[in-house]
């Protein structure tokens, strides 16, 4: 695996094993809120959202700009509606 490879990481990972300790940076997708490891040369295609001004994880659902905050609000609205219908 790579190592620490980002200038402004969003998270930090330490893996300790019999062969020693490795450190990795993680970045947070601005659309799904998930973190992914920065592995230089992995060949994985990530993205950058110009509206959110931040990295995206590259998953299909995260290609279009929908900030994570909006997703959460939509989920919470749906759940409130669902609960109201059940009552």
């Amino acid at each position, binding site marked *: 695996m790579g190592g620490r490879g980002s200038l402004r*990481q*969003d*998270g*930090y*990972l*330490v*893996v*300790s*094993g*019999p062969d020693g300790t490795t450190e990795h940076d*993680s970045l*947070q997708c601005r659309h*799904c*809120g*998930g*973190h992914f*490891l920065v592995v230089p040369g992995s060949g994985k295609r990530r993205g950058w959202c110009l509206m959110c001004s931040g990295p995206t994880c590259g*998953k299909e*659902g995260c290609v279009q700009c929908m900030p*994570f905050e909006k997703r*959460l609000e939509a*989920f*919470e609205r749906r*759940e409130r509606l669902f*609960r109201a219908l059940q009552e």
Partner: protein
Amino acid sequence: MARNYYVNGFCTSGVDKSAVELVTTTAIRPKVYEIMVSCSATPASQAALWQFKRHTGTGTGTGQTVNKMDPADPTALVTAKVNNTVEPTYTAGDIPWELAVNQQASFDWKANPGREIVLAASATAGGGLKTSTSTGTAVHQGSLSWEE
């Protein structure tokens, strides 16, 4: 001001086995900022894919007391379960964190302030630390820290 809490759990690794489950409330959006996993079994060269996933329906597990980072804080609003016998209804594809590690290794991941994994404010939703796949069955420990 945010209050910090943590909970430690365990599970026997396998396919879809939750070590720790967090259940939120409609009052708060917990922000998970630390995930730790290690194995307490006799070291073997087996691997497991660990995931932290959001869920929309709670499962069945042993209730676990949530610990306060600051003893002066009030009791956490989030509740926790460990070693689930019935898995929560995880949201397919919603995997904010995953890492495959050998049983002989342990990992500790921390989010930078403001970059935590946020869970929805919901009466039934939450998140869980689980194995997705595993080549062996060994008892693993998982720990989650969050602020609310």
